């Protein structure tokens, strides 16, 4: 077994897979990346909802794909229902989503990882994060227990992506079990290590609904939820097909499509829940940590929205290879007998059998003001965190952080002292919004992406993700792999088509107006554009049409936003040195000083987004920083012998 790596990824969830993939893309050397997982057969497992994408999350997947990531590829190869959400609204808020065959998803993730010689999978438990004891604390590797034997794995960078597994505690009624996912273990060694390294930990809660056996549901009696008639894949590679290792995605959709069903809760079910609140860990005080407001448990919904007599439940088949059905809408940690009773009251589920009960899980997170927007920790050089450990929720949010951490870890391993790090601006990508929010906000619940978090969402669209990011991926050396080269070819062709299309938009006319002018009218839809242009422009993929349409439709707004971005750019990116002692700034208001001291922003832009920091504080800060720099220079000159 190899024990020397450039990047060690701990955890094989969605953050870990994407981190290993990005690092492999950048490094390109066989055996340079280790992926350490408690159980290699659980790599890429979907712990909760068997779906990828959705509102704002779909944009994240498209961005990951444009950066040469793997999530879009796996989703395309394993989707069993594709649907773009919000199509009745403008394209900036379209959200591509798919239901996944969750067994196929994990298998495909594992197969793709195996097809990368750069990545070595190591099955074991990480017992300790190894660091040196010099002036700057640097990570050196991890101590792993493999088959009962201790091994030292060495690397200049380690990415921790342990999801919900740190000091994980599952709740179902009064029953409490240690573990981060049903039937699996917990990772306590890492929690201890992080404590010893001085990280401030927090605790969060999340939950999952019960799963039903499909043959026990009166499936045909329920209202059908179908996907799009013309499904659209996530990845730019999929329309022309791709192949890697055992995975051959030569058609789309690749596997048989399914429909979902709709059921609901009723008053009787709500009555049962109310009568059993004294057995609900959410209400008895057994669970103290904060869960997400956007994903409340059914007991929460019944209590908070007591005037409602019904809540919708979507029944989503999980896989062609299992009989499990996911009950979207009734996450719960009520005792099993209560869950049985609730299910019985749902139309179509009168005789349904629960194959796995819902549960809540509490887990440790590291408060994310302790990382940079690159994912690297402030305290330990070379140590990165990605995914749920940073207090986020969702596969897509995890994968996005994995991509950033994997890329940066590989860069750090290659560049050493010269490493400066890469991160996206809030105006470049949802990934940039995500990382910036993490380092400037106090997490009060698991963080989830919404389009309303992105102030530049007209620019950050799903359709133009390749235009925004693929050139960056190329520049960062993420497209050296076969798939990456193919991606670059496709991108070049796309760029040419778009350029030609834009010229035609200015030339072709619809009545008095050019098509470009006509596009500013809300009634000029993408289909009308197609009709007006196909004759001279030829046939093109939906992706091309969508971007041509949206870029022009939003142009006046985008231009205004770009103006704002340009005006703010200097301040946004002006760096704040890390050696500044904010407590010495006595002329600054206490509140501002404390916020700066805690979050230690790396740019003035970040500083201006902290709670409690006003524009006047920023003016003062710019002067105080300059003064501190001058003082430091002076001290250095005095110390230096002539």
């Amino acid at each position, binding site marked *: 077994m190899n024990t020397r790596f450039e990047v060690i990824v701990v955890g094989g969830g969605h953050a870990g897979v994407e981190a290993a993939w990005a690092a492999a893309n950048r490094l390109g050397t066989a055996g340079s990346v280790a992926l350490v997982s408690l159980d290699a057969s659980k790599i890429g497992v979907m712990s909760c909802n068997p779906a990828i994408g*959705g*509102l*704002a999350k779909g944009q994240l997947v498209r961005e990951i794909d444009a950066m040469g990531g793997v999530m879009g590829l796996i989703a395309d190869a394993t989707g069993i229902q594709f649907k773009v*959400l*919000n199509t*009745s*609204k*403008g394209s*900036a*808020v379209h*959200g591509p*989503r798919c239901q996944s065959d969750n067994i196929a998803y994990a298998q495909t993730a594992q197969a793709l990882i195996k097809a990368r010689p750069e990545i070595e999978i190591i099955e074991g438990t990480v017992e300790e994060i190894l660091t040196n004891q010099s002036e700057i604390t640097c990570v050196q590797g991890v101590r792993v227990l493999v088959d009962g034997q201790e091994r030292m794995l060495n690397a200049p960078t380690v990415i921790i992506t342990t999801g919900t597994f740190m000091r994980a505690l599952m709740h179902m009624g009064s029953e409490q079990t240690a573990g981060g996912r049903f039937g699996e273990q917990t990772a306590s060694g890492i929690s201890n290590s992080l404590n010893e390294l001085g990280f401030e930990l927090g605790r969060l809660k999340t939950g999952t609904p019960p799963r039903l056996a499909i043959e026990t549901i009166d499936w045909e009696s329920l209202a059908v939820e179908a996907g799009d008639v013309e499904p659209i894949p996530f990845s730019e590679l999929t329309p022309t097909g791709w192949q890697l290792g055992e995975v051959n995605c030569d058609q789309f959709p690749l596997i048989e499509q399914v429909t979902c069903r709709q059921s609901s809760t009723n008053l009787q079910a709500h009555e049962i829940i109310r009568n059993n609140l004294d057995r609900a860990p959410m209400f008895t005080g057994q669970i103290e940590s904060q869960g*997400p*407001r*956007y*994903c*409340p448990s059914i007991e929460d*919904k019944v209590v908070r*929205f007591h005037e*409602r007599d019904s*809540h*919708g439940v*979507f029944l989503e088949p999980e896989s062609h290879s299992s009989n499990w059905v996911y009950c*979207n*809408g009734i*996450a719960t940690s009520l005792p099993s007998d209560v869950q049985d009773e609730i299910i019985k009251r749902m139309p179509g589920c009168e005789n349904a059998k629960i194959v796995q009960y819902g549960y809540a899980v509490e887990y440790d997170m590291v408060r994310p003001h302790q990382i940079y927007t690159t994912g690297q920790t402030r305290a330990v050089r070379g140590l990165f965190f990605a995914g749920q450990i940073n207090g986020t929720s969702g596969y897509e949010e995890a994968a996005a952080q994995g991509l950033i951490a994997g890329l940066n870890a590989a860069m750090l391993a290659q560049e050493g002292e010269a490493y400066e790090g890469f991160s996206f601006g809030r105006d470049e990508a949802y990934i940039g919004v995500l990382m910036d929010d993490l380092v400037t*906000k106090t997490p009060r619940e698991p963080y989830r992406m*919404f*389009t*309303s*978090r992105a*102030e530049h*969402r*007209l620019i950050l669209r799903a359709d133009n993700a390749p235009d925004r990011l693929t050139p960056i991926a190329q520049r960062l050396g993420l497209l050296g792999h076969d798939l990456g080269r193919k991606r670059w070819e496709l991108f070049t062709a796309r760029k040419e088509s778009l350029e030609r299309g834009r010229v035609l938009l200015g030339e072709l006319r619809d009545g008095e107006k050019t098509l470009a002018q006509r596009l500013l009218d*809300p009634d000029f839809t993408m289909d009308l554009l197609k009709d007006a242009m196909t004759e001279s422009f030829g046939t093109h993929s939906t992706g091309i049409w969508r971007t041509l349409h949206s870029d022009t439709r939003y142009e006046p*707004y985008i231009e205004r936003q770009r*103006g*704002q971005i*340009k*005006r*703010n*750019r*200097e*301040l946004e990116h002006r760096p704040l040195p890390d050696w500044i002692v904010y407590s010495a700034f006595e*002329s*600054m*208001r206490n509140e501002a000083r404390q916020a700066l001291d805690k979050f230690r922003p790396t740019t003035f832009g970040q500083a201006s987004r902290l709670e409690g920091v*006003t*524009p*006047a*504080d*920023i*003016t*003062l800060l*710019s*002067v*105080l920083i*300059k*003064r501190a720099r*001058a003082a430091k220079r002076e001290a250095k000159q005095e110390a230096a012998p002539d």
Partner: protein
Amino acid sequence: MPTGGTITALCTPAGASVRAMIRVSGPDVCDCVLKLFGITLGDRGVFQARCQLGDRDLPVQVVWYLGPKSYTGEDTIEIMLPGNRTLVGRVIDCLLGCDGVELAGPGEFSARAYLNHRLTLQQAEGIALRIAAEHEDELEAAGALLDGSYGDQCNQWATEITTLLALVEAGVDFSDQEDVIPIAPCDLHARLGVLLDAVVAQIGTASGDRVHSDLPKVVFVGKPNAGKSSLFNALLGIKRATVSDQAGTTRDVIIEQMDLAKHVPGAGSVELVDLAGVGEAAIDMIDASAQTRALEVIEEAAVILWCDPAGVFDAANIALPTATPIVRVRTKSDLPSSSVQTTESMNTLSVCALDGTALGSLERAIADAVSRRTGSGVGVFVPRHRRALIDSKDGIDAAIGRVDSTRRVIEEPELVAIGLRDALDALGELIGEVSPDDVLGRVFATFCVGK
């Protein structure tokens, strides 16, 4: 504090004066001059120009500095004009109508001067400190004032916009939830219309600035021995009124002129009026007549300083005119408050006449209250606030333009949201920022989301 764009602001005190100076700095200065005065700028120099203000021509003098040889180190013009608030306001409005020109933030000219190496570190630090302090004072003073109907109104508008934005965003970010039924276009259109009318009316009352021949009266009101006279003296900086521990020391009406501009840039002069205490049974005949006279004077007040050492401000015993702006002052702030139920957190200024604690904030609150007095009813009190309202109005306008009330659904909610966001950000300058998290919070509180 964005840098790089073109900024403008009045650089001389805002009150009536012989001359006022408006500075414009940044890359768009030449375009501005061409648009406003029809003049193409050459080298630096001074020239006369005429500024078109509606049907009138205003002669102004323009001093032109080619960057980097200017105060800010950027291309700069300084426009000299008569120091009349209405004229200044209209010229600034014209400037803001030019492409790329924005109102300068606190200390922005100086910050640019410093960043362009036109100021030394010491100079810059001094200026930055003063700006930070003034900003604090301003916020505090605005907070004190926002207790009145003006603040209530701004808060109401902001709440309504936040609610509407939350409804629009819910339709965007939670449209996959069967529980979320976004607002219907006709409802949104109607509610935005009501909002727009209210904001437009407010801006209207502020634009017709009257010239006041008499100085505004700032009247001290409070129970006997509330510390009114001590505060009166402290503000004047002289021992004008007789002070004692004895209740009912002041029996005459004492009037003194005070120039607020000394400490509050942009403010004018006022008359401070010290009165006998009111609200308690008269101790003798003379006191009774002094109280009667005091009540008459209160009616004429432009601004009332309600002094109460306990910080309780019980309106039961004192009848104050409802239309007059009131600044609540907890006097004798060096003494522990006698009541646990002080309303200190609710926009009250705590002031100590002995050591001068918060006198600066008080002066600023008075200045703002005075300028708020213009127009009928509740007016806009400083030019910055008026600008914020206009920006807010523009945002609402833009949002309405994107809502087709004949449709069943809002077709491009992302564009409606942009207008609402702009409107909310503009109001945020008056009442504090409403963040995307706040909007999401409202969605979670309103809708049952989570499949």
